[in-house]
């Protein structure tokens, strides 16, 4: 689906740091998202996802580092960038007294590229009634309306901050279906953060795992899943693990079973593990994205 190769990435963060008082919300994150790809950002609550997204949107300024969006500096050219981005926040604060139609006409005034017909199509697709007031909408309808607002001006970059949190199954599928259809329509870039890791696994080209403000890993999804594996080994009686191979991000010993999650897995590492430790019976398990996520997060906090 990447029909053209743009030289500059859609989003670029270089050593970005943001502090709130004594707390470091975002800690020297460097990230580059190529245009036309779908990037999934996952992390526990409070990991720094929303802060990162707000800096990309120009709603917050970083304390250090540089944020570039669509080739422009996010701090200086906020206005021009916002015209080309569609943003769906986690919590919606649209004017509750407005009718949907009024809200659409209001937003249209700010975007030169607003497409009326696309807007109508989307409203139909989501079965939204333009005469209803925003305060009358259910959570699911509110999220879908926010998506209409974000998509109607045909943005090059779509940013979704936990867009499906609190939505029931049908609303969530409906919403993601809407996002997916626009993905197919052009070489758009999508960044979305989510707690539903299954959504990231099925929709994202690449994924970034963030915890305590640090970016733990940024890889294409398929590559991450195929190169990260958990090795389960039975320890010989009375023995403890001696050394784990390079790239071990999480390990645990339970009774006689020693489990290690390895990134960049190769058979050579497996042999190395066998040689350097007193183990009998070694099994290698493939991982889903949820398992990989857990391993990275637990490993980074030192928990088991």
């Amino acid at each position, binding site marked *: 689906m990447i029909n053209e190769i743009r030289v500059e990435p859609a989003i670029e963060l270089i050593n970005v740091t943001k502090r709130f008082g004594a707390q470091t919300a975002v800690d020297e994150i460097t990230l580059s998202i190529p245009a036309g790809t779908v990037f999934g950002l996952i992390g526990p609550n409070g990991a720094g996802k929303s802060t990162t997204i707000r800096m990309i*949107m*120009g709603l917050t300024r970083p304390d250090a580092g540089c944020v570039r969006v669509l080739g422009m500096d996010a701090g200086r050219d906020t*206005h021009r960038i916002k015209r080309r981005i569609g943003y769906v926040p986690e919590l*919606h*604060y*649209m004017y509750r*007294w407005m009718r949907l139609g009024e809200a659409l006409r*209001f937003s249209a*005034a*700010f975007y030169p590229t607003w497409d009326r017909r696309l807007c109508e199509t989307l409203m139909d697709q989501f079965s939204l009634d333009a005469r209803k007031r925003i305060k009358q909408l259910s959570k699911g309808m509110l999220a879908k309306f926010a998506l209409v607002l974000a998509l109607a001006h045909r943005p090059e970059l779509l940013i979704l901050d936990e867009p499906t949190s609190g939505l029931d199954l049908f609303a969530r599928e409906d919403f993601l279906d809407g996002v997916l259809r626009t993905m197919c329509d052009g070489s758009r870039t999508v960044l979305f953060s989510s707690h539903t890791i299954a959504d990231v696994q099925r929709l994202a080209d690449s994924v970034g795992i963030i915890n305590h403000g640090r970016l733990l890993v940024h890889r294409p999804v398929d590559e991450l899943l195929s190169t990260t594996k958990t090795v389960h080994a039975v320890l010989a009686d009375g023995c403890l693990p001696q050394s784990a191979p390079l790239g071990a991000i999480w390990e645990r010993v339970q009774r006689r079973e020693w489990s290690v999650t390895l990134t960049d897995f190769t058979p050579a590492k497996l042999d190395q593990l066998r040689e350097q430790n007193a183990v009998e019976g070694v099994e290698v398990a493939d991982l889903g994205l949820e398992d990989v996520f857990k391993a990275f997060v637990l490993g980074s906090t030192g928990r088991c």
Partner: protein
Amino acid sequence: MLKALLWKDYRLNRMLLIFGAVILFGPYVVVLLAQWRTGLVNASAHVWAESLTSACMLSMGLSLLTICLLSANVFAGERADRSAEFLASLPASRLAVLLAKGIVVIGTITVIAATQWWVVEMLIPWVDPRINPSLNEPLWFILSVSVLIGGAGWGASSVLSSPVGAAGAAMLAPMAVLSVVAGLSWKFGFPPENSLATWCEVVCLLSGLASFVGFSVAYVRRRDA
């Protein structure tokens, strides 16, 4: 873009503006109705002039409330329900946002001031040419206080997240300013007592305008949303 913002700010404050219109014109309507009972044409000019004068005082005094509430709500209202965050995510220039709000607030103050001025300078003398223009001084005084209230409310609203707090600041501003001027006059003899009223008017007017301009500039130049 400005049109959309103007529409939005008008709709946001519509209740307040209607309330303001009622307060502004209500007293006059009451006067009209009262005279109607006793016979419109029969009433003497003197009675008319007196009733209009009372109505004008009431209207002027109460309209201060309108100005206070409107200017206090103009920024802080959107921060209280966080709809300001939605606005911040749109590519709206701060200048346009400011202008739309400014038009609503200053427009309202202008309408109020113009109405009162017309009644005092035009209507009442026309009704009863013999009457002493007894309302001139109070008129100018209240108008300058309303500029101060408007400016203080505007400024407070642009930095606070609570319209109530901003309204409080708007109310306190004239009290503070006037007590300072009066205090200075009493302690240091300047401003002199005979022209104290004029001095108060000038200070209120200037501080109100300064507040409008100063906080507006600060708002446009603010870096975080």
